[in-house]
């Protein structure tokens, strides 16, 4: 059970405080309700580029990192398709430094040209390092655009192409900031050996004076129901053929999300999971296989991917995966198997809550979903799931006409 207190400033900033007196450290986390899904299709990668710019100096403070490091603090940030999150950890004695820094960059950035010029290059190098210069690094670029015809999940957070990042202008930056980085669209979570009253005072002092801004109303077109299987073949200079398959699943708040999560575990989590045991160990079709999902807020994807053992064809590999899915849908889930994945879920949740930083990030995420208290209900949701319910949901998602397949052919 993670305890927290919650209040809202007059400007709409939601503030959560998690008191934990077992640590000398405080974590200050600011989550903004904007991610790659909110980008203009011609300016993709912008939310992430913007995250970099948040470290390029704010209106009153030329450098974000230096004063924080002087106060003994560390920080980082990440951008997903759904949200952008900034967090720092520092000795609790110096917590006001974090309020000063975070509130100033919520007030306004410095919008320096140099910062934009440099960070465009840095992000292009990041793009190359993770997506272009790695074998199979572009697979999800292809898969997302195959699986999503309409919804902006069709691109990666890094962006569709280098050009979009290279062309970002200072005007784009300003517009994006004042549209999304306002108190009304943000959540502040503070944790550590702190008292809620003190945090209230600090929040009022530093964040209170910032203009509320306009509530961003997300109005994305939902992805239409897929009615026919889709497939793409690409050739690449890689050593092994690779198979990718994904199926649409429910959004994060839907019960279907929890069912998908457990189905993912049954199929592909751990050495005793079905796909690994059958297709890697017994039949030796794949050199390795994974089954996972992205935990996205809007309806997401459940994916199965693996590299093939030399001599096996992609068609054989696809048939073998389909056979395992068929096996699940025909014979259902054994009680022992259900118990196993529920135990795993319990354990994963407990380990996630060990680190103060992780607890803080989670509180912000659940608040963004609508209610931080959801965090404490997760385990019971999973525990209420039955084998029959899982099977029924499996039958709903694992349909041939809902499948998106990428054959990644090795050519040398």
């Amino acid at each position, binding site marked *: 059970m993670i305890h927290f207190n919650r209040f809202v400033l007059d400007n709409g900033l939601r503030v959560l405080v998690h008191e*934990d007196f077992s*640590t*000398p*450290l405080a974590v200050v986390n600011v989550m903004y309700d904007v991610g790659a899904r909110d980008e203009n299709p011609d300016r993709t990668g912008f939310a992430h580029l913007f995250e970099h710019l948040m470290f390029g100096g704010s209106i*009153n*403070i030329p450098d974000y*990192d230096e004063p924080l*490091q*002087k*106060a*003994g*603090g*560390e920080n980082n940030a990440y951008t997903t398709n759904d949200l952008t999150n900034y967090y720092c*950890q520092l*000795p609790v*004695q*110096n917590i*006001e*430094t974090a309020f*000063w820094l975070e*509130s*100033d960059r919520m007030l306004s950035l410095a919008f320096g040209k140099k910062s934009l010029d*440099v960070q*465009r*290059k*840095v992000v292009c*190098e*990041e793009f*190359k*390092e993770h997506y*272009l*210069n790695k*074998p*199979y690094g572009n697979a999800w670029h292809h898969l997302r655009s195959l699986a999503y015809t309409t919804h902006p999940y069709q691109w990666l957070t890094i962006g569709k192409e280098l050009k979009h990042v290279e062309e970002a202008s200072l005007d784009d930056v300003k517009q994006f900031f004042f549209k999304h980085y306002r108190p009304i669209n943000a959540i502040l979570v503070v944790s550590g050996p702190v008292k809620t009253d003190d945090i209230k005072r600090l929040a009022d*002092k530093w964040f209170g*004076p910032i203009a509320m801004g306009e509530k961003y109303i997300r109005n994305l077109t939902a992805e239409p129901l897929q009615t026919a299987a889709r497939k793409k073949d690409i050739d690449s200079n*890689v050593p*092994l053929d690779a198979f990718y398959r994904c199926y649409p699943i429910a959004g994060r708040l839907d019960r279907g999300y929890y069912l998908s999560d457990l189905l993912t575990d049954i199929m592909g989590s*751990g*050495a*005793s999971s079905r796909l690994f*045991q059958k297709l*890697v*160990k017994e039949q030796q079709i794949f*050199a*390795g296989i994974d089954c996972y999902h992205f935990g996205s807020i809007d309806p997401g994807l459940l994916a199965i991917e693996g*590299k093939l*053992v*030399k001599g096996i064809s992609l068609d054989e590999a696809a048939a073998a995966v389909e056979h395992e899915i068929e096996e699940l849908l025909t014979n259902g889930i054994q009680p*022992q198997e259900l*118990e*196993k994945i*529920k*135990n795993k879920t*319990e*354990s*994963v949740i407990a*380990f996630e*809550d*060990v680190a103060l930083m992780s607890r803080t990030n989670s509180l912000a995420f659940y608040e963004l979903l609508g209610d931080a208290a959801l965090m404490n209900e997760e385990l019971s949701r999973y525990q209420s799931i039955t084998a029959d319910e899982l099977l029924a949901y499996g039958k709903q998602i694992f349909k041939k006409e809902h499948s998106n397949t990428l054959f990644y052919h090795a050519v040398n």
Partner: protein
Amino acid sequence: MDKLNRKKAPAIEDAVAFHLKLDTPLIYKLSNATPVYAMHGGAQEVVKIEWVFNAGNWYEDKNLIAASTNFLLKNGTKNKTALAISEAIEYYGASVSRSCYNETATITLHCLSKHVAILLPLIASLINEAVFPEDEINIYRKMQLQRLSVNLRKCDFVANRLIDAVLYGEAHPYGITSNAAAYEALSREELNAFYHQFYTHGFCKIFAAGHLPDNLDALLEAHFGSLPMNAKPLPDRAHNIIPNMVKKHHIINDENGVQGAIRIGRSFPGRKHPDYVKSLVLNNIFGGYFGSRLMSNIREDKGYTYGIYSYIQPYQQQSAWMISTEAGRDVCAATIEEIYKEMNLLCAAPPDEDELYLVRNYMMGSLLGDLDGPFQQITRWKNYILNDLPEGYFEESIATVKNISGEELLALAREYFQQKDFYEIQVI
């Protein structure tokens, strides 16, 4: 209404003034002399227990024997198949991982506190009853060969291997690299022999942390106290370091690569050398954190890379001081030039008081984080114990961070940042 002076930083307490304390674990020995270090604490009812063996590749007679033995510990025992072992672990939502390093190799259990008692016998069987079935070895070999073929396409993977090979020599355990022939040559007999000598009859230390069961000592005694470990002395193994004659190696691994992996490194004395802790401070200034000189210049000013770091890689016999980055193909040469330029700047003048103040505080704050909670604390203890560091090392390290002077840092830079001493790898 904003009457705040936002240009003025709030007052801070110097992290340097903090009194940092490393809690002491409970230390005891099982009846077969296996030492146990136990750090109890934490609100979540979870534990991590690690069995550390002197079974790294330092002790192998043939390439990949140590790593393969370690990997295959979980793939079959006298009474259980690989699948049955995985099911037994995963049924409780637990995980058992294993890792092989240069000197040591480990088995690590993560689980809920309530499942410790039921999982310990299984871990004991991995140490005492593993059988290395032939078909498991075959699958492992096949999978590793395929994985290697993919990794060899990555410039960072290739560069990491190459820098170790040139620093230590390809025959040395620190410099040796995996290759197809070595996987092909693995035999069950060799794995078995290594296992019996270095696990079943090997040297083991146990590190436990988290919300530990009250009777952990009795449980460990019951399952591990009578195993035949820690009885025979370890064989003496000496390995000569034979550095490469050529300092600069630029290679093209992928004609179409859009980035180059750069590794620049030199040999450096180990943890016990009096310069070691001081060098950590110099390393921070140079390339050890986000505000470092390398990062500020090469990423934040020039935009040549997504990230650049320097670090001291502390092995037991000898360590290395390394700089590591992936940079755009067309700016690799410029990046390398800037790296040496930053070394030269540190050799030309001491860091000013402001920079030194910042780095001291940053390192102290970071240490505070490193001591937070039982998992972090046991990691630090493990490091001290496995490296046989003297009592008071922690306090001395802190004193060094607090007191080292700019002049001392200048002298260190002049000693260690000579371009001619560095190996330079660039892999596109």
